[in-house]
């Protein structure tokens, strides 16, 4: 008997300690004031439930054991006891109200996105995230960077398998950042547990949310709303920086955007276009048309050795810019810039033995986009 008790006590102590403190068992405390409050609420309510469970089941099992039939216990037979009934109705009522008060206070705080220092537009796209720093003229798409070979099992998993991107969302600490969240296609959900943000992005709607991060670091998340075949492949990475570091990053990123814009005007070498095109193809197109352009017919046509593509340059360019409506082939006019569009078209016209030898210049694409 004693050893049974010891086992019950030690295992429940073990469980409560691990479930509260071990990494990955519980929800994270996070790195914002709000996430800390949510964590606090979660733990408070958890312990309230534990106490209620212990009292209710304790009373039940004690009575079962103490007043068992074999000891000659006789069941009582009464039909009402108003005092007890009022007691067990009022107590839960008070507990619920007691939990609702702090929860409502936190909820009100979570919805107050006013007076932000920085506005970031977050746009869900099948299957990547686009970030636009409003008023800063900095915007980019963030694509998963896990190599396809790891996904198909030809290579071992990397450290951040499926949770790494080519360009993270960079945010400053100690500043209120407002998120304006929407989607270009279907409903996605932008979820980063450490920031306690999980918000649906809905086409045609703009949802608001905000963070004020306390600690610099890298925080990872995922799309949390089933959004199609590559739902698992649109991770989120947030890089939170010290304020000065962030300001420097912003200056640098703006400069890079300017260089990229300048790049539209100049003549690009074939080699440059091919190199750039390969990167774009790997991160954007390979999800459907596969790394070697072999496609996955009948769903996704092959681009390697595609006769129409090789013959009809004009149709090829139009297809990539405008997509094919009613199919899975997206329009890339708003997702990729002219340099990326020109290089990915050039790449697909010359890789894997397509060898057409012709190239498309960014300036040409820019002209078409302006029309």
């Amino acid at each position: 008997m004693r050893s049974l008790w010891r086992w019950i006590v030690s295992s429940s102590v073990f469980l409560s300690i691990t479930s509260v403190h071990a990494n990955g068992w519980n929800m994270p405390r996070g790195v914002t004031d709000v996430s800390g409050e949510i964590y606090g609420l979660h733990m408070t309510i958890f312990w309230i439930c534990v106490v209620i469970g212990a009292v209710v089941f304790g009373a039940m099992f004690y009575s079962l054991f103490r007043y068992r039939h074999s000891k000659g216990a006789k069941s009582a037979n009464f039909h009402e006891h108003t005092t007890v009934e009022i007691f067990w109705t009022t107590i839960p009522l008070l507990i619920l109200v007691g939990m609702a008060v702090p929860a409502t206070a936190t909820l009100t705080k979570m919805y107050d996105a006013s007076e932000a220092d920085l506005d970031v537009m977050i746009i869900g796209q099948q299957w990547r995230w686009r970030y636009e720093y409003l008023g800063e003229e900095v915007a980019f798409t963030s694509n998963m960077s896990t190599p396809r070979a790891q996904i198909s099992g030809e290579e071992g998993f990397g450290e951040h398998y499926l949770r790494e991107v080519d360009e993270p969302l960079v945010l400053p600490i100690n500043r209120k950042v407002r998120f304006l969240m929407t989607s270009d296609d279907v409903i996605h959900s932008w979820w980063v547990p450490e920031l306690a943000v999980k918000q649906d992005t809905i086409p045609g709607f703009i949802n608001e949310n905000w963070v004020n991060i306390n600690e610099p670091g890298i925080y990872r998340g995922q799309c949390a709303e089933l959004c199609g075949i590559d739902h698992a492949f649109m991770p989120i990475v947030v890089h939170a920086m010290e304020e000065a570091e962030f300001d420097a990053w912003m200056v640098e990123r703006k400069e890079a955007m300017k260089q990229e814009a300048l790049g539209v005007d100049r003549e690009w070498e074939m080699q440059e276009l091919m190199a750039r095109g390969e990167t774009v193809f790997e991160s954007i197109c390979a999800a459907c048309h596969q790394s070697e352009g072999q496609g996955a017919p009948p769903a996704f046509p092959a681009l390697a050795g595609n006769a129409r593509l090789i013959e009809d340059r004009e149709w090829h360019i139009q297809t990539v810019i405008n997509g094919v409506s009613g199919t899975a082939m997206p329009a890339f006019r708003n997702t990729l810039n002219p340099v990326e569009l020109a290089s990915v078209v050039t790449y697909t016209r010359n890789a894997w033995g397509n060898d057409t030898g012709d190239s498309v210049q960014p300036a040409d694409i820019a002209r078409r986009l302006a029309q």
Partner: protein
Amino acid sequence: MWGLIKSVLAAFLGVQKEEQRRKDFSASSPWGFIITAVILAIIFVVGLAGLAIWVAR
């Protein structure tokens, strides 16, 4: 009147004495209870909304 309100409030909470229940159920018409209950429910909802508006003000 007060007895009617007390019975309806007891129903709101979900606790009533068996003796009182018997008495209420022997009333000649249920309409007194129904009308009192509807009025009290409206007061409850309006009061709750008022409380929420006052807190969020």
